[in-house]
């Protein structure tokens, strides 16, 4: 090679490293790189916690918008932005991806998948909750049940694979999770009677490495918790991003409700592994353990809520734990090595169970199942919390969760399976005059005891972020963005963004300054101290 050629090669090499490169090692250490937000929940332990300290209770009143990105077309924006190396990656309705200059919000590239005219999204709106980044690629799941790998530099498609048949009700809305060389992606569609699964794909080639069926087939363990053919349309969506423990090398993934949702007569049995947390080996998808929160669920209480991993001393012994606030109204502490149930307690009003037994199984109250004339139960169908993210602060030892205080009247109805159509067997209605409300609650992470509550006017569809600066950030369904004192729940700052919040906040650095970003209505707002 000539001297010039070598010089060009060196220059090109430098340019290549300057572009987005998020190798697995950076993802693994994401919690130590608070200037970025590299993965959906901030870190594999899923704390949604930023160790940035610039914004504090003393100065947060000076928080102001720095820039706003407006999504061009109508549709709910449920994205968690990813921020890496000067670029913010966001997703919009209809599985669209935008790469923005993080300093100004100006668009660098867009990816707009062509979706079929007869696209089906049964049981959820046409949303997307975020991308995953790994190496020089950006990964997104699409409504027509595909996983797409995009070039981080330009948005060009590297590969695209089909996860399932959208005509049968499969879709993807969750942010994928990138681990070492692999992309893990879940599917939606239990309301259409899919048989759910979790997949792993080779990040370079798009080859499927394994598939874990959330509803076991004949011969597979757990199959005997279904009768007849009901397993074929058993549901079990995997539609939220799980957590990962690199030391134990275990993935933790929540699994959704069985189908049909409200008519359990056609599927007697516990219906594993619906409404469960599964611990899987990422190399093979082998199930190491599972814990079922709501056996034979008939209230649509998906257990997809984010599993939060912490290490703590329990009863004098250091334990590796997984914490989760379930849709069914109970907060759980499990051992994440074995799935052993350690603690469980209600964190919201619930009228369907007289507590949990020593194994964590709910003691179901008779007469709380859906019925033809309607059965009034707390929590509502959407649950005491829903898809949005909780946060954990190692500083306060508190688990923060957005709570929905609402009841439903549950109806049982006909359930006739037709591929690609609703398969729910009933539904819900609101008791008249009931004004549901919401709250951000801070629970002691180990006991689940509520330490404080900040009430929201209406039940939220948004999650929370905790920071080392001592704050909890969130949004409301009436357009408020707010900051609370993480120790006391006192509201310290709020901003009216003009559109309901249906997303989770993140924090990162721009030019050494701490910023907080949150999708509000049809826009993404970025705030910093004035």
């Amino acid at each position, binding site marked *: 090679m000539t001297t010039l050629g070598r010089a060009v090669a060196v220059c090109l090499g430098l340019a290549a490293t300057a572009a987005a490169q998020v190798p697995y090692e950076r993802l693994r250490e994401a919690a130590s790189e608070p200037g970025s937000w590299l993965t959906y929940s901030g870190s594999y332990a899923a704390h949604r916690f930023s160790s940035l300290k610039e914004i504090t209770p003393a100065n947060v009143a000076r928080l102001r918008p720095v820039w706003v990105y407006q999504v061009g077309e109508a549709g709910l924006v449920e994205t968690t932005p990813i921020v890496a190396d000067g670029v913010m990656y966001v997703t919009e309705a209809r599985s669209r991806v935008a790469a923005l200059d993080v300093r100004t919000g100006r668009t660098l590239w867009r990816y707009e998948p062509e979706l079929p*005219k*007869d*696209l*089906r*999204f*049964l*049981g*959820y*709106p*046409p949303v997307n909750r975020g991308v995953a980044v790994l190496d020089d690629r950006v990964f997104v799941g699409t409504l027509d049940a595909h996983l797409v790998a995009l070039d981080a530099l330009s948005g060009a498609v590297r590969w695209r694979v089909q996860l399932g048949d959208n005509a049968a009700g499969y879709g993807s809305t969750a942010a994928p999770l990138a681990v070492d060389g692999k992309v893990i992606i879940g599917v939606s569609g239990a*309301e259409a009677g899919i048989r759910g699964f979790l997949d792993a794909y080779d990040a370079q080639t798009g080859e499927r490495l394994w598939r874990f069926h959330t509803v076991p087939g004949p011969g597979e363990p757990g199959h005997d918790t279904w009768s007849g053919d009901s397993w074929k349309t058993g549901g079990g969506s995997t539609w939220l991003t799980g957590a990962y423990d690199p030391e134990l090398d275990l993935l933790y993934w929540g699994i959704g409700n069985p189908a049909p949702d409200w008519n359990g007569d056609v599927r007697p049995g516990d219906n594993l592994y619906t409404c469960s947390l599964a611990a899987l080996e990422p190399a093979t998808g082998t199930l190491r353990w599972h814990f079922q929160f709501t056996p034979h669920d008939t209230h*649509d209480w998906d257990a997809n809520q984010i599993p939060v991993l912490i290490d703590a001393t329990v009863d004098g012994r250091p334990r590796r734990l997984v914490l989760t606030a379930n849709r069914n109204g109970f907060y759980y502490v499990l051992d994440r090595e074995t799935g052993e149930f350690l603690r469980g307690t209600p964190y919201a009003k619930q009228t369907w169970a007289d507590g949990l037994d020593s194994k964590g199984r709910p003691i179901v109250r008779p007469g709380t199942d859906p019925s*033809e*004339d*309607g059965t009034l139960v707390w929590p*509502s*169908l*959407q649950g005491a919390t*829903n898809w949005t993210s909780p946060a954990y602060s190692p500083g306060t030892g508190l688990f923060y969760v957005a709570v*929905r205080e*609402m009841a*439903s*009247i549950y*109806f049982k*109805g*006909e*359930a*006739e399976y037709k591929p*690609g*159509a*609703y398969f*729910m067997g*009933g*539904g*819900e*209605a*609101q*008791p*008249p005059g*009931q*004004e*549901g409300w919401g709250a951000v609650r801070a629970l002691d992470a180990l006991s689940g005891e509520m330490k404080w509550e900040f*009430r*929201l*006017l*209406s*039940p939220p*569809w948004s999650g929370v972020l905790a920071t080392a600066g001592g704050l909890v950030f969130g949004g*409301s*369904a*009436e*357009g*408020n963005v*707010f900051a609370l004192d993480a120790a006391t729940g006192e*509201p310290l700052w*709020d901003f*009216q963004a003009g559109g*309901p919040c*249906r997303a989770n906040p993140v924090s990162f650095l721009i030019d050494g300054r701490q910023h907080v970003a949150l999708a509000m209505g049809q826009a993404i707002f970025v705030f910093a101290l004035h």
Partner: protein
Amino acid sequence: MKRTPLFAFVLCAGAVALGAQEEAPKALENPTADDLARGRKLFDAQCAGCHGIGGTGGRGPSLTRAKLRHASDDQALVDVLFGGVPGTGMGPVWQLSERELVQVAAYVRSLGAVPPEVLPGDSARGRELFEGKAGCTACHIVRGLGSGLGPDLTDVGARRGGSHLRESLLDPGASRPELAVPWEPRSFAAYVVVEALTRDGRQITGQRVNEDTFTIQLREADGRLLSLKKADLASLEKPPGASPMPSYRGTLEPAEIDDLVAFLATLRGE
């Protein structure tokens, strides 16, 4: 106590939304007695909370008319159930199976064959009361005349049956109008009475125009707008069952109530 049954339906669009998928089912051409019976049972359980038993109206409009505003023919009525009416409290009825949905539509259509209510009372005398002794124009607009503090009543007779109109006069706090808003619970109780005490000791009574977690916007009795931060309030109460509208029980004779109801029933908009 409300005479309407316990249940009301509000779409939980957060969990479920009808999107770009199959079209609405075909309306039943010849509904059988069984279809109508099933439709009625479903209606009473899941629709009557807003529309009243027998579709006579309540928080939602009366359906006992041959011509429904959003449903000119049988298929249009099925379409309303399938897709909802955007901008109102009527969302898509996602939870019924196709068969159940067309049965409910057939039942609703049959309500139009019910002969119109015969109301006692003289609507001409009712109009005099409305504009005179009852003082309604101090808070209500009809055909552009009156005051906008309370709901516009120009088409209230098309939307509400006789018993609901009577209830509004005798027990206005029992059933408040609702506005559709994009957040849960999707029907935002309108004309809610709010009593607040500011931190510097000022007592405020007004009706709520809007509210979020941190602020509330009120209108006082004289129409003045107050925009308040909840952090500036020592207390904020919404007395249940209260209404900015007074009850006419005792202030008007029973015959006068009948006359007013008869007049309101004639207000059917354009």
